């Protein structure tokens, strides 16, 4: 049995965050209708998140105490890295919510509290080493997500999106739970490491019905992860939810839960199935299946994005495509691949949040998310148009922006796998990047080369928007040229306890 005191110390980030949530709830109640209430709530939430990120540094690193509460929660570098990443995503979500008029002032407190709860869930999901913890983490991310999607009460699109989300979410988590129950039945344990040992033992023997059961259980479990990262065939909720949800939450949703889901998927497959994902498991070629899913996911996302007139919806499909790029590396499952996903996600956090921030700024002024609202943005609001261009080109993966570095590492990891199949996957990925260029560039062209219509005046940027755009755009540029420190941080934290 592990020492309880050491375990509590190991979840210091969560404890700080829990404290922050309680303080924010109290502050929100006590301040009632005072004018400074939203600002105070936002400041407290941000302080809580910053405190949690700081607490991550205090947790003993890999090698010291790599696991807490028996083997429920991992405290290895991998988990800590993702915790920091998702707390950052929540940080941006809190600030964007304060800037948006889609979140009513008197409801902002609830928004911030739910977002903080979500952040904690994402951290636990990334650290789960046990099927029970994995399920709890997933639900802790899902439940606040449903509520925040339907946050604009009385809005038809918001309500519809929330119900679609909750039905698809609940269904896929049900499928996953059934898969987990079969895994428990097969191996008599919920611990991922021991499930991994059980799988190795099972596959060493002659093929029996249990191999089939294992294949079914894994397929069902995969459904839950695929839904969380919005991969085909569980991506249908994504465009509707992204369009219907309040824009600041969409910005967060496209990054935070996706990162946490990706971390959980990586840990699940690498721990239970060994690294690399080891060819055929249970008579089923998992690497090939994941590789095919990755190709289908990015192709579906990119082709569907081509004709979208609603920019928010277009970015939703683009985020499906990005999940596909990352899944290529998950399929490879090598150490390089894990590191490349870890490098891609922070970059993706910056550029995608930035793109949604630009969408939000245009919506605040024009009340529209349609492509036509972006006509002549280059002259109506040069700063907004230029930063939007930076984010979009970075999403495309054009040098010298950060997105290029992220994609470069992803493709390098896939090509390093060296098998003919993964070479095909990489080629499909490159072709997809070219397709993506079309719709990103279409938005840039609309902004710079099309004349604004009658009555479409200047889009005045508020000072907070300008600051936030800069905060997101500058690192997007810098990381494209000087990514060494981030890469070495990942190198240090990539160690995952198996």
């Amino acid at each position: 049995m592990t020492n309880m005191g050491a375990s509590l110390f190991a979840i210091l980030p969560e404890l700080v965050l829990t404290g922050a949530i309680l303080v924010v709830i109290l502050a929100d109640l006590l301040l009632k209708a005072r004018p400074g209430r939203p600002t105070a709530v936002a400041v407290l939430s941000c302080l809580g998140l910053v405190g949690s990120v700081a607490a991550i540094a205090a947790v003993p690193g890999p090698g010291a105490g790599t696991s807490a509460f028996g083997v429920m929660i991992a405290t290895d570098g991998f988990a800590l890295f993702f915790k920091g990443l998702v707390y950052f995503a929540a940080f941006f979500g809190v600030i964007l919510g304060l800037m948006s008029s889609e979140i009513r002032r008197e409801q902002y407190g609830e928004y911030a509290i739910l977002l903080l709860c979500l952040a904690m869930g994402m951290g636990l999901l990334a650290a789960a080493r046990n099927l029970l913890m994995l399920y709890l983490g997933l639900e802790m991310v899902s439940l606040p997500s449903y509520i925040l999607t339907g946050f604009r009460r009385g809005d038809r699109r918001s309500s519809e999106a929330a119900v679609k989300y909750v039905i698809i979410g609940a269904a896929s988590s049900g499928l996953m739970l059934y898969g987990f129950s079969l895994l428990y039945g097969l191996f008599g344990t919920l611990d991922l490491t021991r499930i991994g040992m059980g799988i190795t033992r099972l596959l060493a023997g002659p093929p029996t019905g249990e191999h089939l059961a294992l294949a079914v259980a894994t397929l069902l479990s995969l459904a839950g992860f695929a839904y969380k990262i919005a991969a085909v065939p569980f991506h249908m909720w994504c465009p509707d939810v992204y369009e219907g949800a309040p824009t600041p939450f969409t910005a967060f949703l496209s990054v935070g839960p996706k990162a946490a889901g990706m971390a959980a998927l990586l840990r699940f497959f690498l721990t239970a199935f060994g690294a690399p994902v080891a060819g055929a498991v249970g008579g089923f070629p998992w690497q090939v299946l994941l590789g095919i899913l990755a190709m289908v996911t990015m192709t579906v996302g990119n082709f569907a994005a081509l004709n979208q007139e609603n920019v928010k919806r277009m970015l939703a499909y683009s985020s499906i495509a990005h999940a596909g790029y990352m899944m290529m590396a998950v399929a490879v499952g090598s150490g390089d691949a894990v590191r490349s996903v870890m490098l891609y996600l922070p970059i993706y956090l910056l550029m995608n949040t930035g793109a949604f921030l630009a969408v939000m700024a245009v919506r605040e002024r024009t009340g529209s998310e349609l492509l036509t609202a972006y006509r002549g943005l280059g002259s109506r609001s040069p700063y907004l148009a230029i930063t939007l261009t930076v984010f979009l080109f970075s999403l495309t993966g054009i040098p010298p922006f950060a997105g290029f570095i992220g994609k470069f590492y992803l493709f390098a990891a896939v090509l390093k796998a060296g098998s003919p199949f993964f070479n095909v996957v990489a080629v499909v990925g490159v072709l997809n990047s070219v397709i993506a260029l079309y719709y990103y560039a279409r938005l840039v062209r609309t902004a710079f080369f099309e004349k604004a219509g009658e009555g479409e005046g200047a889009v005045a940027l508020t000072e907070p928007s300008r600051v936030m755009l800069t905060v997101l755009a500058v690192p997007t540029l810098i990381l494209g040229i000087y990514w060494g420190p981030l890469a070495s941080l990942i190198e240090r934290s990539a160690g995952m306890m198996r």
Partner: protein
Amino acid sequence: MSIGLGHYLVVSGLLFSLGLYVLITRKNAVAMLMGVELVLNAALLNMVAFSRLGRVGPDKLDGQVFALFGIVLAAAEAVVALALVLQLYRAFRSVDTTETTDLKG
């Protein structure tokens, strides 16, 4: 004849299939949520059955604990889902998912 693991697995398999069937065929949001509940209960029944009769080592109680957590989470999920369905009804005057379709593309 005594009730063994196989019997439980058959029942849970049936529940799972019925839940999936409801999910796929029904268009009413409330009915779809009922399908989800069936799937969840099938999984939890599996957990308890494996924990009691299956091949478990030292983690004998894990499955039953999991089921308890699962019941709580299913309740929480039902609360959130039904609240959202109510909100959908207020906005559309319908809970038929083929009629509540403003979002397309």
